[in-house]
């Protein structure tokens, strides 16, 4: 009985071969998704910066815990990050936005600034791109806290700002995260 069946079985087993297939190439898998996310935004009228002398430097600041970048997945797979800022200013003053990043020991890991010029009360759009790669990217991955400081400089003509002053300062920003997810 078995003798009669064996050849049949063998026929099926032997015939079922696979040609020209290489499963090991799966080890080279690499995918590169690019994720964009909104970051910080604000929109303040000139009256928020009321300053009766016209000669003072007004500094406002705020900070936030930002431990997203030392998440394990990002640590392993993020290969580049870009922060893009767009500031629209129609207040007749110079501004500077400082972005300061701190690590877990409260040491500054990196800081950069965006200088914002006025054109009277006309809207001036200033853009700034900060690219994090290689060493700088490592510093971003060590960041746990971020501080945003917005400084307004004195008016060259000495005109004070009050609740009737016109103009706004607006910021929009986004992060572009470049991943490379592979087998390494």
């Amino acid at each position, binding site marked *: 009985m078995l003798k009669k069946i064996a050849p049949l079985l063998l026929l099926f087993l032997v015939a079922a071969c696979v040609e020209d297939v290489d499963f090991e190439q799966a080890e080279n*898998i690499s995918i590169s998704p690019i994720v964009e996310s909104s970051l910080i935004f604000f929109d303040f009228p000139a009256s928020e910066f009321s300053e009766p002398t016209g000669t003072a430097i007004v500094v406002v600041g*705020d900070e936030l815990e930002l431990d997203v970048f030392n998440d394990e997945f990002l640590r392993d797979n993020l290969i580049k990050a870009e922060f893009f800022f767009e500031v629209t200013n129609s207040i007749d003053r110079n501004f500077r936005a400082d972005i300061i990043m701190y690590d877990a020991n409260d040491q500054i890991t990196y800081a950069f600034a965006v200088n914002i010029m006025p054109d009277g009360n006309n809207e001036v759009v200033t853009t700034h791109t900060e690219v994090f790669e290689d060493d700088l990217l490592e510093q971003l991955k060590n960041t746990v806290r971020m501080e945003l400081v917005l400084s307004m400089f004195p008016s060259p003509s000495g005109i004070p700002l009050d609740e009737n002053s016109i103009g706004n300062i607006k910021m929009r920003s986004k992060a572009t995260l470049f991943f490379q997810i592979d087998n390494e």
Partner: protein
Amino acid sequence: MKKRCILILLFSCAVFSQHKQLLYNYTDIPQSLLLNPGAEVNYKWHVGIPLLSHIHASAGASGVSVYDLFADNGVNFNEKLRRAVYNLDRNDYFTINQQLEIISGGFAYGNSYEPNKYLSFGLYQELDAHVYYPKDYAILAYKGNRDNIGRVFDLSDLNGKAELISVLHVGITTKLNKKWTYGFRGKIYSSLLNFKSTNNKGSFVTTEGANNFYNHNFDLDLEFQTSGLASLVDLDNDGQNDWNAKAVKELRKRVLFGGNLGLGLDFGFTYHPKEQWTVTGSVQDLGFIYHTKDVETYTLKGQYTFEGVNPLFPNNGSGQTADEYWQEITDNFEDLFQLDTITKNYVAWRSPKLNGSASYKYGKKVLKECNCTADDSDYLNEVGLQLFAIGRSRRPQFSVSAFYYRRLFSFLSGKITYTADGFSKTNVGIGLSSHIGNVNFYIMADNLFEYQNLAKANYASLQLGFNYIFPMEKK
């Protein structure tokens, strides 16, 4: 090369669908009663050789084959992956089906001179998994959202289920007259393990924002139901091997009424409008399993729109700092992606199957002595068409087969089928059934065109088995 052949065979055994066009209405083989309890029976009794009477394994993937991804043709693997990610449709699917008959048997009864009823019974184990290609998830993971601003990622693309069950069944086939035969089979399902995620809803979309560049809208309503899993995960163990052994032992306990139970029904008929014409039809696995024991459902539910962090610094009135604001956002995200585990009974419907066929028999054996045909002998050939449909969570899947059956020798018959379905339009299969003494052996395989290179096949199946069949006495 040898090693690779074996590997592929295992792979192909581990992967196939439920369509058994070769076995359907192959009445020489008792297991055809499992596909149509109203199939004609022409033997007195049968016993399946335990654990060897019906071994079936099949796997398929619509839209992509092993070859498409792994061909050693110089094309970069990631390019092949990219093609697969984009070319597959959300209704493409991957499926695995495996059955192993543990015991089976049957006997004719009724009129003592001409028994007109046949009772058949058995116990088999079945593994069935069916997963749709989660296209939107794949594209989001593959490409990210930057190049997909405005695209709504549909979270209902995640849709799949898997079950490991045992089925205890008994059926009665009744031959009403020369024209009509019908039958029923009752089934008790015992679920060893079940996963089900078929009611997912929601979306993720990034749109142009009003206050910031983007709004990211999350609307999640996802559910993953399990039964039989929690107790396995919680098994005490001393390492992986120990866990494996304990899990297998635990699963074995559930084979006979140990798991979650369910009921099912098969029914079918055979009709001869004329002597040489045959029409058959059957419905299988019209049934459900009610999961109440060892159930755990994981849910992800919530809505949230993120447009960035707004540091309300100078004197914003809300008294909220950016950090508090950020904390609120973090909390919202945590709530959103908080996986809730709930204990909830659920009903899992089996995938019902519908079979139908119409066929024509012809050509009797020519006797050498008189160069004529014996009137009472069987026809040697049969040609016909078969239809198969299976209900799946989104929509039924269909296939059509043309077949030719031939009695080759008194101890050997064969069937060849040509099948068109969601996997391919060029599926040719062959089945052989031998009766040597009272021992019946059958073997069937699908997709023979692709057999030289199985990797190119979208679907492959193999079934074989041994029975001991005691024939009717010749009158």
